[in-house]
């Protein structure tokens, strides 16, 4: 590490695994970065970190309240579960969607918003998108906690399938990381991508079964759901948390393969082009 020569051209695989190793070598730096990112928005408030759980709790409480007592809209016709509150159903789908949209938005800016570090310090850049992705996941873990609390308050039993959630979260992290790295590269070289992604993210919200239940689409449009990795995540969340069923094995396999491929592609792209970032800021 002490000695380097700029002309040491490594193979892509070599660079790839080298960069993966940085995450271990720089684990403390990574830890502080993530901690900083997670606590940043609560800094300076009187309640501090309490807001991490209180914020989502208030939100999910209002969602649940609006869709039960105030408007008396329930979910009985579409989901076949007369006690399911639509607010909770909605929030359960929102959680994976929010990690997706944050991954895109923050990923695009992850290099630009840290231009001070990129231009002024010799710094393992791959840490920056990683931090964004993990911090947004950690944030959603609090949201997940809030959801469980509300489920209990509404008198629902917690399904044993919840124990499978870590598996889905790991797959989701790989998926989110892949997206974030690709977005970081695109956003750095092409600032216009940020403008393009805004409508794309909004569109994704409507073509993913978040507001509407899975399987609602007619036969000729079902590809919208079937080839949408985000739809897989939303459905898996609802299966494990609300319905107590397991997501399909085949679709899980497809999603895993897709996420891993996305990550390998995104990370390799990032590692290869990272040294050029400083010129483009």
């Amino acid at each position: 590490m002490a000695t380097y020569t700029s002309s040491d051209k490594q193979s892509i695989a070599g660079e790839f695994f080298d960069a993966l190793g940085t995450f271990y070598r720089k684990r403390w730096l990574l830890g502080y970065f993530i901690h900083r990112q997670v606590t940043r928005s609560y800094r300076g408030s009187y309640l501090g970190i309490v807001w991490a759980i209180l914020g989502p709790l208030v939100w999910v409480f209002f969602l649940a309240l609006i869709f039960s007592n105030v408007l008396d809209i329930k979910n009985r016709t579409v989901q076949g579960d007369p006690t399911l509150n639509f607010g909770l159903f909605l929030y359960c789908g929102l959680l994976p969607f929010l990690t997706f949209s944050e991954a895109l938005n923050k990923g695009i800016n992850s290099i630009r918003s840290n231009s001070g570090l990129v231009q002024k310090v010799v710094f393992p850049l791959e840490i920056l998108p990683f931090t964004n992705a993990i911090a947004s996941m950690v944030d959603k873990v609090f949201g997940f906690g809030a959801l469980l609390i509300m489920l209990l308050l509404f008198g629902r039993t917690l399904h044993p399938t919840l124990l499978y959630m870590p598996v889905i979260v790991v797959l989701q992290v790989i998926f989110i990381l892949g997206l974030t790295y690709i977005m970081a590269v695109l956003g750095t070289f092409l600032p216009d991508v940020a403008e393009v992604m805004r409508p794309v993210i909004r569109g994704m919200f409507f073509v993913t079964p978040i507001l509407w239940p899975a399987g609602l689409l007619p036969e000729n449009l079902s590809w919208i759901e079937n080839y949408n990795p985000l739809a897989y995540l939303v459905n898996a969340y609802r299966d494990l948390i609300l319905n107590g069923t397991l997501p399909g094995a085949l679709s899980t396999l497809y999603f895993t393969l897709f996420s891993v491929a996305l990550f390998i592609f995104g990370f390799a792209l990032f590692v290869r082009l990272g040294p050029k970032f400083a010129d483009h800021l």
Partner: protein
Amino acid sequence: MTPAISLKGIGKKYRIASSKSLHLRELLSFGKKQHTQDFWALQDIDLEVEQGTTLGILGRNGAGKSTMLQIISGVLQPTTGTVTVNGRLTAIFGLGSGFNPEFTGRENAMMNGLILGMDRHEMLERFEEIEAFADIGDFMDRPVKTYSSGMKSRLGFAVAVNVNPDILVIDEALSAGDASFKKRALQRMYDLRDSGTTVLFVSHSMGMINRFCTDAVLLHRGHMISRGTPEEVVGQYRDVLEKSQNKEPDKNTERDRQLDYTIAHEDEDDMPDLPKGKRGQRRPTGEAEILDVELLDEDQHQAHRVPAGSNLTVRVRARYAQAVEESAFGAVLRDRAGTLLFANSTDMEESSLGPREKNEVVTVDFTFGVPYHPGEYGVEATVSGDAGRLLGRTGEAITFAVVAEELAAGAVSQPPSRVEVHDSEELGPAT
């Protein structure tokens, strides 16, 4: 010995366009229209820097100095050529640039250290030192947004120099901060230089380059046009500056010379080694040479950190270059702001030194109680002759740190000071 830094055929090309959309227009015209220009910020740079060198980099604004440092530190990739760096390199391009205003100084210092490549446990070990150097008191645990800009740079510099790099790259980072901080920063840089750190240093201050560097290069429009001793290169730099001024008519007026003088001497007041304002008259005659100054604690061990309230002995050893009728040794203690805290000399204590032969070596011990306030202090020693003539003095202040320790109740006054004169023959091994 392998060079610390080796550059071969380094070039850095930029494409210049006034806006990004011009790039697109050029692409869409399929080469018919040229909206961008190639600009070589650096070209054909070959440079080897031996370990332990202090290299000053001179050049006008836009000459490519910062680009060169950024390429050396690995932030930028060169368009052509290869860079080889041996050793841990720390680059300071602007102090405290990575600080987050919402977090405390302590948290930011830790982050900054980790960013600069330290391990967490290394950082924890050095925290006390960093805190003492930054000297911002309780602010260490307050959010950085409450800091003054001076405090920010102090903390940033404290972290950067405590990384103990093999190679230190500084891009005009010292222009921030007040005089007292500047002085300490310089002192620390001298320490680093003297401990064998390779230092690369950009400055527009020719005086700084002259005094601080062992070697210098001059960049002009992306080319390295000379390399040599600081004096030579500074001379050439003056020529370059003059050429660029030639078009202006009022050259060599009285005012102009004054300005030149001011520019050349602008930072001399901040030098750590000399008292302010007296530089001209107080040059030593060289009739005596101070060989070394040792700091000894109460157990007669060499010490650079002493507990508050303890006694410190300053052992000054000097040789007379000529026979002298009457002379006196003096020692002064200053805090880091340069305020005189304590002064003593052999004639104040009425210990006469008497006439001394040429080449005779004399040792004098000054013992005094160190201040109670923790921090860094500097000691200077002088040998003066009759009528206050200065025969010799220390080149730069010897620094030591006072560290806080629990005080015995009522221990507020400083113990009396003492002066002892030894001839060097009498000086046995420290007991």
